[in-house]
Each structure stands twice: as C-alpha cells, then as structure tokens.
C-alpha cells in the first residue's frame, strides 16, 4: 500500500487526529515533566494549603491551586502523567507480547496447544478483572512493577483471543498455501507471512489496551496499591482529593478530568485506527 495514501487517510480521520493529539500531548507532558512543572510536586507549604485555582481567586503562583499539604496541583498532575504513561506503554506492550505469542501458537498449530491455551483464556475470563488485579497486587506487594505485572497477567487474554481468531482466518488464505508451496518452514510462515497481516489489528488493540491500563493504574493507586503514596499519581490524587471534596472539589475533579481525557484519547485513536486500517489493509 502506498505509504502516502495511508498517512493521508490517517490525517483525514477526526478520531485519529484527536486521539493522536491527546496521546502526543501526554507523551510530551510526561517526558518534559521536570521542565514543564512550575513547582516541585513534593514540596509542601502548609501556609498555602487548599488554595483554589488561580482564576477563582487563588495565589498566582499556583495555576490550579494547592492540596491539603500545600503542594502544587498543576505540578502533581504533570508528574502523575509519567506514571500513567509508563504503565500504559509498558503494561500494554507486555500484555500484547504475551497474548500475541500464545494466540499465534494456539491459532496456527491448533491441536492440544490450542486446547490448553483456549481453556486457559476461558478460565481467566471467568474472573472479574479489577478484582483479580487488586488481589494480585495485594499478594505480590504494592509498587509500580506489581501494577504492571497485574495488568499484564489480567489483560493478555484480550490479545490472545483476537490474535488466535485472526490467525485462524489468515492461515486459510491462499497466500499461506503459496508460502507452503515454496517450501517455507512453519515458523517462518507464522512470523514472516501471517504476523505482518495482524499488525493493524494489534495496533488497534494495543492503543485500546493503553487506555484500559491507565484506568487500572488509577484504580490501583486509588486503593493505595501503586507507587509510594507521596509520589503523585492520578489515582492517588483522586484519593487525596476525596477527603476535601466538600471544601475543594477541584482536587478530585482535576485528576478525574486528566484520566477521562487520556482514556478518551486512547480510545478515539484506537477506534480511528481501526476505521482507517481495516479497509486499506484488507483490500
């Protein structure tokens, strides 16, 4: 396919542009946090606690006001983006790799490998995912690693199911038969011929999974199972803001808004990619 036509199709899709914009913004904010944040997110100033945002009569030093310990909300939100992005990228990618490998094996080789993997997926899906991840983190201990591990362990099935189904379709295609008749080995066909045809689907799934990972991380940090509590995460900020919701509603509303914008961004990007890639690649 012409690369130029693909780029034009992507640029012409509103959801791709909107979602892509949000994701790019998230990346920029997360990577540039030390430069963008006006204050140290951990610095407390009890004399300036619970200041409202600047536009509703707060201190001009604090754009979005301060929390109960006088920490700058704006800076904390910016640093919170780092955790959100790290979890989104790392956890979603690892879940994608694990699920894809198992899905490829199950779909292509079939037989008992398919039986074992498919039953495993069925069993997995019987657990409520949020509960499962909370239990997992509780067992392996709090921390960023645990959050990532929990997301991978819970969500690999999303990739596995879709990849397996897609491989079942692709392996019946004539181009696979052609590959067999020129004497390619099974692994080479699976990785060199079939896998590239799954990339559009994987890209869409990966984007959607990143949005899910952001939510799961927020949930886990809300219940205090993510990174150490003084370091800002969006889930943690919601949890802190909850105590002051009657005096300073923005403490809770702002991180919630961040999560909503980012998740909607990932979902819009995923949906947009699906719309663009499907008809182009499947012709």
């Amino acid at each position, binding site marked *: *396919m012409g690369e130029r036509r693909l780029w034009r199709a992507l640029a012409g899709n509103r959801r791709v542009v909107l979602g892509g914009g949000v994701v790019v913004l998230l990346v920029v904010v997360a990577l540039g946090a030390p430069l963008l944040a006006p204050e140290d997110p951990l610095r407390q100033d009890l004399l300036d606690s619970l200041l409202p945002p600047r536009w509703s009569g707060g201190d001009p030093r604090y754009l979005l006001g301060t929390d109960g310990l006088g920490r700058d909300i704006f800076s904390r939100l910016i640093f919170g983006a780092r955790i959100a992005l790290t979890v989104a990228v790392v956890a979603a990618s690892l879940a994608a790799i694990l699920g894809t490998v198992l899905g490829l094996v199950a779909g292509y080789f079939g037989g008992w490998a398919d039986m074992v993997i498919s039953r495993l997926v069925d069993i997995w899906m019987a657990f409520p995912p949020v509960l499962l991840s909370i239990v997992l983190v509780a067992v392996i201990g709090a921390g960023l690693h645990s959050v990532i591990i929990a997301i991978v362990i819970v969500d690999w099935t999303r990739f596995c199911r879709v990849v397996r189904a897609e491989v079942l379709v692709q392996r019946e*295609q*004539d*181009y696979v038969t*052609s590959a067999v008749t*020129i004497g390619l080995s099974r692994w080479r066909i699976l990785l060199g011929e079939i896998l590239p*045809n799954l990339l559009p689907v994987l890209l869409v799934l990966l984007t959607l999974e990143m949005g899910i990972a952001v939510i799961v991380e927020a949930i886990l940090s809300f219940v205090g199972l993510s990174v150490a509590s003084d370091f800002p995460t969006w889930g943690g900020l919601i949890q802190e803001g909850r105590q002051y919701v009657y005096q300073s509603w923005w403490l809770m509303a702002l991180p919630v808004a961040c999560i909503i914008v980012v998740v909607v961004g990932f979902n819009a990007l995923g949906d947009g990619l699906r719309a663009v890639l499907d008809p182009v690649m499947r012709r």
Partner: protein
Amino acid sequence: MKDILEIDDLHLEIRGMAVLRGVDLNVAAGQVHGLVGETGAGKSMVGRAVLGILPGGARITDGNMAFDGIDLAQLPGASRRRMLGRHMSLIPQDPMTALNPVYRIGRQLSDVLRHSLGLGRGAARRRALELLDEVRISAPERVFNQYPHELSGGMRQRVLIAGAFACGPKLIIADEPTTALDVTVQREVLRLIRRLQRNEGTALLFVTHDLGVVAKICDRVSVIHSGRIVECGPAEALFSAPQHPYTRALFAATPRYDRPGERLMPVPRQLTRRMRDDAAAYDQHRRAMARYA
C-alpha cells in the same frame, strides 16, 4: 518420454469420506497434462496431494506418488520442503488472495528466489525483474515496487506465474489458473503459460473444469469422475473420439462455438449428485450413461 510424475492407485479420504478412489496418472516430462472433471470430482485434491498441501482432515489412505523417480511418501519433511519451490511449484486458482497483501511484489518474488536458489539480494532483484519481463509485464520496475492490491487480477496471475516458473521447476501444478479471470485475460494467460512451459521444458499438470481451456493447452488429458480417472489419452484423440460415456456426457454439456444453437445436454442428475462417498455408485449409474454410449 520419461514420466516426471507417476501417481499409482491413489486413495484419499477427507474425514472418512472417500474423495479419490484409485487415481492413476502419469505426467510426462515437458508435457501439459490436463486433468478435467466436475466440481467435487477430486481434481484439485490430486494436485494438492502431490504438493503436500492437503486441507485439514484429508488423509492419503493408499497408493503411491513418485516425482522424478522419488517416492514422495518416503521423503522426510525437510527434503520435501526443499523440493517444493525448487523442483515443483503451484499456480494457484485465485490470484486475488494468493499474494501476501502486506509485501511488495518484488519482495515476494525475490523471497522465492532467495529461499529456493539461495540467491543474494541483488541477484534476486535482477532475476525477479527479468521474470516480470518474461511474463509480459510492461513496466517491471514499477510493478516490482507495488503492492498486490494495486494490480489487476490478470497482472497478479502473471506475477504468480512468474513465481511458479522462478526456480526452473520440473513440474508445475496449475490449479484452475484461469477460472478467476475474465475471458479476454484468460486467453493471454493461457498463451503465456504455454509459451513459458515450452521454453523451459516444464511439465504441467493442468487442473480445470473448462474443456475449452483443455483443448487450447493440453497434450494429454485425463478425465476424472467421482475420484477415479475414467479416461486418459492424447488431447486430440480424446476430443475427436471420446471413448468413455462420461466423457461424452461432459462434451454434450459444453457449448461449442462451431455448433451454435446445438442443444446442450446436462450430465445425468444421478451423476452430478455427491456420490463420492459411495464406491459402488459410479457403477450403478452405468445405465444412465448408456445413452451417451
């Protein structure tokens, strides 16, 4: 002339249903051998059995296949894979799906050459361009850099033909290579296959249901019905004086341009039913055949 492919009493089942019931077929080196039959007669399965690309559930239950004197059943998997592509190849039925949609044409052709002949990147590229030229693609450089969906069906079939002839195989199985093309393109593609086959001295097993195609291209013809070869002979003899009643029934059901207005006779209904699961069925319907005798 020496036989490049010898099939002797081949039996094949798909999930317990007999599809081939003792097929004998010899393809002489350098000849085009037509395999004609109705849908479901098992003709494609013969080619697939030779190439070792049977669908799931299909099993060879009896018989021998020898390629160039080598018993295919005895050959270990790795040697058989080496033989594929290098000495034996396939022109598939549907050019729309037989190329991998994510790779450029040039890369797919080069891959065949690099994998089977061990050519380097540059050599494979040069040879691929030559091949595209040989199959009468007018702008090889451009097509080399195009993706399959940017080409028409006829162009894709040419690319696939180039791929099948790429490594100078001794035998090519052509599985209804013109069925998916429209009639004008069909003609060109047939001519192309015939020309390359003559130049390269390749043997061709040409599987089709189209008698017109057979008449144009084949040296010898085998007629397959319900998993058995009912008649085999030189194309001319078979067309001028078909011996077997089924062959006659088939001819009577085919329109001929030299006899317009002639009434077509359908093949008797008993024969078109699926009777491949019943070994005795064919013999039972001798009577239905009698009127073509």
